[in-house]
C-alpha cells in the first residue's frame, strides 16, 4: 500500500500544505457525478485532496448557528448552515461542497420530495432497565442532541411522524447490547427519527441494524450525558435497491465516552454523516467505519468532530474496500479545533483498498486548528490497490488465489470489525464481507 500522507499538523501554520508530494492538485470539481458530464469516463481510482485554499480560513466570517439560526457559509466547517426548517436549505444542484460527490439522481427523492412513505419498522430488543418509547413530534427530547446540517436531513426532520426514544437510565451498566432492528419494506421516500439518551454514568452498547429495502432519510440523535460510556454501532446491510441518508449526531457531556462504528455493506446509495460535538471537557470520542462497495454502489461518509471545548480527545479511523466497475466510495472527515479547545488531542485517518479496476475512492481529510495550545492533531489518508503482483507474491508462497484475496481484505478490514466487541456480530460481519468478496469475483 502506498502511503500518501501521514502528517502531523503544524501548529500555527497559516494553512494546510498546498499539496502532498506525488499528488497533483485536482481542484474542486473532480467529481463528475453531478456536473452532467459522462459519469463513466473517469471511473479509475482517484484520490482527491482538499483544496489548497485551506480550511483555516478567517475566523471573522464564522457565525456558528447551532442554536438554529442561519450561518454564514465560509470555507470553515463552523460556518455550515444548520436549521430545523427545510425551507432554510436551498434546493440541491449537486455542486454544493457537501453534495458534489453524491449522485443526486439516485437519491430517489430524498432531497426534493415530501417524505411521506412508511419508514422502516423499528423493533428494539433491550436488556432490563432500558426504556424504549415511541413518541410524537412534540416530545421534549426531540432536538436535544441534533440539528440538521443539510437539506436531506432537514427534509426528514420536517416529515417524520413519530420517533423512537431509547433511554439508558443513569448509572445503569449493561452487559448485553440493545438491538434496534430497522426493517425496510417500502420503496417510497420516507423519514425516520431515533433518539438515544445515555444517562449519567451509564454504560451501554446500541446496535442499529438496517435491513431490507427502503428509501429513507434518517436522523439519529445521540445524547451522551456526563460520565456516560456509550457505543453506537450502525450497520447498513440493506438490499441492493436501498437508498439511505443518515445523520447521526452525538452531543457529549463532561467526561463522556462515545464510540461510534459505521459498517456499510448493502444498498445502492448510502450516505452517512456522523458527527460528534464536545460540550464539556474531559470527553473522548472514537469514530470507526468500514465500507465495502461493489459494482455500481455509492457509499459515502462525511464526518464532523467539533472540538468546541478544552481537553477532549478524538480518534477517527475509516477503512474501505472497493471492488467492481463504478464502485464509488467517498470519505470526508472534518475535524475542527476551536479557539476554546485547548488541550485537544485528535487524529483522523482514512484507508482505502482498491481491489479491481474501475472503482473510485475519494478521500478528503480536513483539519482546522484555531488554537496552538493543543496536545496533538493529525490526519492521514492512503489509498492502495491490490493487483496482480500482490497476488503473484502471495501465490508464490503457496497460498491459493481465493485465500490470498480473502487474506488481504479480511486483514485490512478486521481492524474495524474487532472494535465492535460483540462476537456474534463480528462473526456475522466477517461473513458478510467475505460474501461481498465472493459476489464480485465473477
Amino acid at each position, binding site marked *: *500500500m502506498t*502511503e500518501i500522507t501521514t502528517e502531523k499538523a503544524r501548529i500555527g501554520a497559516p494553512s494546510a500544505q498546498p499539496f502532498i508530494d506525488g499528488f497533483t492538485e485536482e481542484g474542486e470539481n473532480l467529481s463528475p457525478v453531478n456536473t452532467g458530464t459522462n459519469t463513466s469516463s473517469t471511473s479509475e481510482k482517484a484520490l482527491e485532496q482538499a483544496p489548497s485554499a485551506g480550511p483555516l480560513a478567517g475566523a471573522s466570517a464564522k457565525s456558528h448557528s447551532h442554536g438554529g439560526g442561519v450561518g454564514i457559509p465560509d470555507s470553515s466547517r463552523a460556518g455550515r448552515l444548520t436549521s430545523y426548517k427545510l425551507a432554510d436549505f436551498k434546493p440541491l444542484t449537486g455542486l454544493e461542497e457537501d453534495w458534489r460527490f453524491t449522485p443526486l439522481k439516485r437519491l430517489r427523492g430524498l432531497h426534493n420530495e415530501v417524505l411521506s412513505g412508511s419508514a422502516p419498522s423499528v423493533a428494539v430488543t433491550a436488556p432490563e432497565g432500558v426504556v424504549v418509547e415511541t413518541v410524537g413530534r412534540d416530545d421534549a427530547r426531540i432536538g436535544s442532541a441534533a440539528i440538521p446540517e443539510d437539506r436531506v436531513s432537514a427534509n426528514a426532520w420536517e416529515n417524520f411522524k413519530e420517533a423512537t426514544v431509547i433511554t439508558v437510565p443513569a448509572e445503569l451498566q449493561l452487559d448485553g447490547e440493545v438491538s434496534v432492528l430497522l426493517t425496510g419494506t417500502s420503496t417510497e421516500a420516507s423519514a425516520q427519527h431515533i433518539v438515544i439518551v445515555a444517562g449519567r454514568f451509564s454504560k451501554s452498547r446500541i446496535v442499529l441494524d438496517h435491513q431490507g429495502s427502503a428509501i429513507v432519510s434518517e436522523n439519529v440523535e445521540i445524547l451522551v450525558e456526563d460520565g456516560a460510556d456509550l457505543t453506537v454501532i450502525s450497520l447498513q446491510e440493506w438490499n441492493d435497491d436501498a437508498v439511505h441518508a443518515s445523520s447521526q449526531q452525538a452531543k457529549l457531556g463532561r467526561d463522556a465516552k462515545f464510540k461510534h462504528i459505521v459498517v456499510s455493506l448493502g444498498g445502492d446509495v448510502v450516505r452517512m454523516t456522523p458527527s460528534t460535538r464536545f460540550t464539556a471537557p474531559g470527553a473522548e470520542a472514537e469514530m470507526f467505519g468500514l465500507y465495502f462497495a461493489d459494482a455500481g454502489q455509492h457509499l459515502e461518509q462525511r464526518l464532523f468532530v467539533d472540538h468546541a471545548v478544552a481537553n477532549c480527545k478524538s480518534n477517527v479511523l475509516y477503512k474501505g474496500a472497493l471492488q467492481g466497475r463504478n464502485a464509488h466510495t467517498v470519505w470526508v472527515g472534518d475535524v475542527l479545533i476551536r479557539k476554546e479547545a485547548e488541550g485537544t488531542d485528535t487524529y483522523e485517518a482514512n484507508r482505502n*483498498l482498491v481491489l479491481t479496476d474501475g472503482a473510485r475512492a475519494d478521500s478528503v481529510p480536513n483539519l482546522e486548528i484555531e488554537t496552538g495550545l493543543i496536545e496533538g492533531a493529525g490526519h492521514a489518508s492512503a489509498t*492502495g490497490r*491490490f493487483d*496482480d*503482483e*500482490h497476488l*503473484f*507474491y*502471495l*501465490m*508464490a*508462497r*503457496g*497460498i*491459493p*488465489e481465493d*485465500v490470498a484475496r480473502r*487474506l*488481504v*481484505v*479480511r*486483514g*485490512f*478490514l478486521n481492524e474495524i470489525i474487532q472494535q465492535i466487541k460483540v462476537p456474534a456480530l463480528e462473526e456475522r460481519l466477517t461473513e458478510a464481507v467475505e460474501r461481498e468478496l465472493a459476489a464480485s469475483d465473477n
Partner: protein
Amino acid sequence: MSTLEIKDLHVSIETEQGTKEILKGVSLTIKTGETHAIMGPNGSGKSTLASTIAGHPRYNVTRGTITLDGEDVLAMSVDQRARAGVFLAMQYPVEVPGVTMTNFLRTAKTAIDGEAPALRTWTKDVKAAMQQLRIDADFAQRNVNEGFSGGEKKRVEILQLELFKPKFAVLDETDSGLDVDALKVVSEGVNRAHATGNMGTLLITHYTRILRYIKPDFVHVFVDGQVVEEGGPELADRLEEEGYDRYATGAGAATIAAAAAAQA
C-alpha cells in the same frame, strides 16, 4: 533426493514492439544439496529464468520443459509450484496491504504443509529465525513488506526460505542492494537452510561478491538467454577478474563492451 530439471527452455514476453524471446534454450539440472550460481550481465535473462520457474504470468514458455522429480512444473499454477517445493526469493518483493507478517507467514506455512503448524513451536521458530536474520520483532505486526527498506525486504525473503523449507530455492539477485553486513546476514541464512541437506539452490547474481559467503558447486554463465559457459567455483573467480567481456559476441557485444567501457 530431489531433482529440478530444466530442458531446452525457450521463454518470450509480449512487449509493445511485439513478442520478444528472452530465453533461447536453457538446460540445467539441480539436485538436492547442490548450489548452482547463475551469473551474467544485465539483460541476459537470469531473472526471467527465476520468474518462469515460479510461474509469473508475464512469461510465456514456448518450448522446453521444467520438471520436479519428473512432475511437470509448467502445468502447475503458481501456488501449486510453491506447494510442490519451489521457492523464489524475489528481487523486488512487493508490499502487500492489509496482511500482517504474522498472518501471512502462518497462512503460507499452512498452505505449503497442508496443515496448520503447531502454534507453540511455530511462534518460537518464527521468533528465532527473525532473530538470526536480525529482523526487529515488531516487523511481525507490520504488513508484509510495507515500509521495509530494500535490505529488510531481502531478509524477510530469506526468513521465509528458512521457515517454509522448500526443496528448491531460487534466489533472484538477493544480494543486490545489500551492504556488506546485510549480505553476510542473508548469506548465513541461506547457508543454514542449505545445511539441512534437503534443499537445492539456484543462486542468481550479477556480482561475484555473494559467492565469497555462499560457495557454489557449479557456475553457469548466462549471455543473451543462453548458458555460454559452465564450470566449478573457479569459474566465478575468473569472472571476478575478467568480467563478462570475453563472452561478448555478435549483437550483444557492442552493448557489453560499452557498458564495460562506461564502468572503466
